[in-house]
Structure formats: C-alpha cells, structure tokens
C-alpha cells in the first residue's frame, strides 16, 4: 500500500551514491511490482480465459471442442452459427433478439424518465412525509424480490398481462428499481443548486428547470442508469421465465435455455455460438461505455 515507486524515483534524481536503505527500498519496489504483475496476470487469465475459450469454441467443429483446452480453432468454421441461428423452433435467433429489444428499449426509457422525476423530487423539494418515503426507498433496496414475486404474478394474471411484455416493462415506468432513484439522488446532492436557482429567477418553472438545467447536468449518471438497466434486462431470466409462455415471445435468455434443453447431446458448437451472440450486445455496450459503469458503481454501489 505504500507507494515505494515514488520513493525510488526521488532517490534516482539524487547524485549521491545510494545508501543501504535506499538500495533496499528500490529493490523492494521492483520485487513488489514483479509480484503484483505476476499475480494480476495469473488471476486475469483465469478471469478471461473462459470467455476466450467460448469465443474460440464457437468457431470449432463439435469434435474439436472437447479435444483440446486451447481456445484457437484449428479449422475455423461458421457452421455453429449457421445451424444455431436456425434454432430448434420455427423462429430464427433473430426473432428472439428482436423480442429482447422489445423489452429492453421501453424498460430503459421508462426507468430513465421515472427515476429522474422521482430523484429530482427527493433531492430538490421538501414535502410532507418525504423522510418516511425516502426511508422506505432505502429499505426496499434490501427487500428480496422473492417476497413480492408470487403476488405480482397473481396481479398481472388478474390484469390479463401474462405472456406479454407488460409485466416486465410497466413497473419500470413507476421507478420500482429503488437503486436507480437512490443513485440519481446521490448524484444530484453533489451538484450545486446555483444554476437551477438562476433559472428559477429567470422565470422558469420547476419542470422547465428540470428539463433544461438538471437533466443535462445529470447526463453521466443517467447514462449509468440506462447501461445498468440494459445489462440487467439482457441478463434477466426469472422474469421472462415466469411471464412469457409462448416461444414466439421468447427473449434471448429463454431461447438459450430452450436450446440447451432440446439439443442436449451433440451440438455444443451451436449452443456456444448462440451464447456468444447472446453476450455480444452486453459486451459491445460494456466496452463502449466502461467508464460509466465504474462511475455508476462508485457513486451508488451496485449489486451484482
């Protein structure tokens, strides 16, 4: 934890012959860096190799997949992708991708809008009962989903929403994901109010202030919210599993599960190819917007 490297650098600028202690510190800094790099590389390999292997395996033939642990395919082939795309259903994998988008897009939009409104309300206004409601919001961060899941199912069943995307999407328009509201409130608290007050003095009402002043300032945090909601929705399995019953409405997660159940024995390359495709949107989004994820986690602390 001590920054030996800067000590060593200071020592190097000196013209005196290094003392015993200085030599010791310098050596210790080198050894420490070496140990850290080695450790980080070994762990890094363990972290990344399964993913590399999966991508490589998706271009292998079935017989090659389980013949060598090396990830690079000997005779690269797209056959896994071609066969996997067709699926064992009357629909192609493209259909399931579209279905996933039909859930993700309205969910992300709803989350962003409702969380912004609510966070603005909490962060910038006083109203009767505010403390209680905010305490409940914090409390629900810890409330496990299992307790509410069954009655929610019964409610949506009463409403006739089963086998549609409404149960997955509509609650998000009511800021049910307390975590996002909390994150935006935290972010807003750190922003000075002067610009908003100036806008109010110039005659803007609170809603105009929100749209023209607060939202632009909130942009980085809002991007984090959208990214996390995108990821979580792409990763969500239990929600679709409970609510979606017809194959034509399946999102990617259910389609993948169908694939492992129906093509058990000999089409590993098909399944691994579709697994790669299923992860691609998340990976692309992650690599495009890494810094927002890290920021989002550091400001709010993310489950996961």
């Amino acid at each position: 934890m001590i920054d030996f490297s800067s000590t060593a650098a200071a020592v190097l600028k000196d013209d005196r012959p290094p003392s015993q202690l200085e030599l010791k510190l310098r050596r210790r800094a080198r050894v420490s860096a070496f140990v850290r790099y080695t450790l980080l590389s070994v762990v890094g390999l363990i972290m990344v190799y399964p993913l590399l292997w999966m991508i490589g395996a998706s271009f292998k033939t079935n017989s090659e997949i389980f013949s060598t642990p090396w990830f690079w395919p000997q005779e690269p082939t797209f056959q896994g992708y071609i066969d996997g795309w067709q699926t064992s259903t009357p629909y192609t994998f493209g259909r399931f991708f579209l279905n996933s988008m039909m859930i993700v897009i309205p969910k992300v939009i709803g989350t962003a809008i409702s969380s912004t409104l609510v966070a603005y309300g909490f962060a910038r206004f006083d109203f009767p009962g505010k403390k209680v409601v905010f305490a409940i919001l914090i409390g629900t961060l810890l409330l496990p989903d299992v307790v509410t899941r069954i009655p929610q199912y019964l409610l949506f069943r009463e409403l006739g929403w089963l086998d549609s995307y409404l149960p997955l999407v509509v609650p998000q328009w009511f800021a049910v994901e307390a975590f996002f509201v909390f994150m935006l409130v935290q972010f807003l608290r750190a922003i000075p109010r002067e610009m908003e007050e100036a806008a109010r003095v110039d005659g803007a009402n609170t809603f105009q202030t929100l749209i023209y002043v607060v939202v632009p300032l909130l942009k980085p945090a809002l991007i984090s919210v959208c990214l996390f909601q995108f990821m979580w929705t792409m990763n969500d399995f239990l929600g679709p599993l409970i609510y979606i019953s017809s194959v034509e409405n399946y999102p990617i997660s259910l389609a993948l599960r169908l694939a492992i159940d129906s093509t058990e024995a000999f089409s590993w390359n098909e399944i691994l190819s579709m697994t790669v495709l299923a992860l691609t949107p998340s990976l692309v989004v992650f690599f495009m917007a890494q810094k927002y994820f890290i920021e989002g986690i550091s400001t709010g602390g993310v489950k996961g």
Partner: protein
Amino acid sequence: MGGDSKYLGLWYVAPYIIGLLLFTAFPFVSSLYLSFTDYDLLSAPEWVGTDNYERLFTRDRTFDRSLRVTMIYVFTTVPLKLAFALFIATVLNYRLKGINLFRTAYYVPSILGGSIAIAVLWRYIFAGNGLVNMILTGLGFEAVNWFGDPQNALFTITLLRVWQFGSAMVIFLAALQSVDKSLYEAASIDGAKPRHIFRYITLPLITPVIFFNLIMQTVQAFQEFNGPFIITQGGPLNSTYLLPLYIYDEAFRSFDMGYASAIAWILFAIIMTLTLVAFWSSKKWVYYAGDKRN
C-alpha cells in the same frame, strides 16, 4: 425552492409512490396473507392458518435439505467472494502500467453477471469432458466429477459467483483510493510493516464498504436462482436445490401458491434477521470517519 406549494415535490415523487403501493407494498402484504392459505389458482385462496409453516418445519424433508444447502451456499460464497474482491482490490490499488487493463478484465465476468449465457458457458466448462477437466488431466491431475457428485455440485455454483467478484472489487477499490495517503506515510515513517498498516489503518477505514458489500452480497446470494437452475437443475440429489428453486417449483410448476409464499416468507425472515444482526453488530466494528463513538 421558495414560493412553490409545499406539495410540489410530491408530484415528482408520485410515480414512485404509486409504483411502491402497487408493485411492492400490496404484493408484500398479500404474500404474507397467501402464506396462510391454500391457493392453487383455480379456486379462491382458502385460509388454513399456520398449516403451511407446520408442514415446512415438521414434515417437509425437501425443505430441510434445501434450507441447509442454501445456508451452506451463502456462508461459503459470500466470505470467499468478499475476501477475494478485497485481496484483488488491494493488489490493484497501486500505480502500475496497464492497471486499467486488469481492472477491465476482472470486471467483465461480473457485468455479464447472472445472465443465462454465462450459466450455459459454466455448464460446458465444468462438464465431464469440459475445459476445466481437460486442463486438470493435462496437468496430470484426475478429472473431477463436478456436477455429478453431490459433494462438488454446489461448490461449482460457488466458483461461478466468486469468479464474478468485480462489482464488490470496484467498490473496495474506490474506498481504498479514498484513504488519506498521509496516514500511510506517517505509519511507514514510524516503521510500520505493510501488513500492520493494512491491519491497523486500511482495514478499519474501509469497514463501511465491507459492511455495505457484505449486506448486498448476502441478500443477493440468498436469491441465487439462475446458476443452479441452468447448470445443475437443483441436482444431483437436491445438492444444489436452493430455496429460490424450491419456491419457483412450488409456485409455478405445482401452482401451490400458498405453500410457496410460506417458503418465501421464511427465506425473507432469514435474510432480514441476518441483516438486522449485521446492522446491530456493525456498531462494534464499522468505523465511520467523524463519528465520535470511535
């Protein structure tokens, strides 16, 4: 903001309050009610008093087993994951070239998190002839029966979640970086060894995030579903049949909504009890800067 009605903020918060009542509060109360009923979706819920709970605790061997497996899972996964995340965060908290590359590499598995795709991948990596066994036999070890053997199956799920230590790590890293560097300098001038500095300076200062991570990871681990559902289907011999799987089966396969609600409430009670114990104990070990008690 002066001049506005004191109810103005309420309008902005209204969506949340409606959502809370509709999708959280009402389901919360009704699930407690349902846990005292017999409800198969066909006829109206029938009040049966504490029957469901008595059945769970006296007659249901599956529940016993599932509860035990859940406890073992949570109490191995959470400490392992947190220890690993903290360890890697301390190694990463150091100015090295290319450090961001490592941070990204460690974080990728977590962002793909609970996705089915990763569970599918795990299923193939730990298969009898899968990647892990190929590497083991290549190194001269014996292949391990990861999923077929009840002794190992749960541990395989644990490994999956420990592999995804990235979110906890990022939070630890942020905390480590906010520790006042002058404290380290002072201690090292006094001749403190690195492990003493870690033990007596770093660790106390990051107890708030240790506490935060502990709570979040515990609540999450108790709800593990995707891993065992996809990788082992709860087997073999129910060795990975965690409570959320049992609840799912009772509710959405057997349509025994009342019984499933009772299991859900027991799970909820366990999580809440442990959370309260953690909050209570935190007074003794969590250090908040500026808090006079410490």
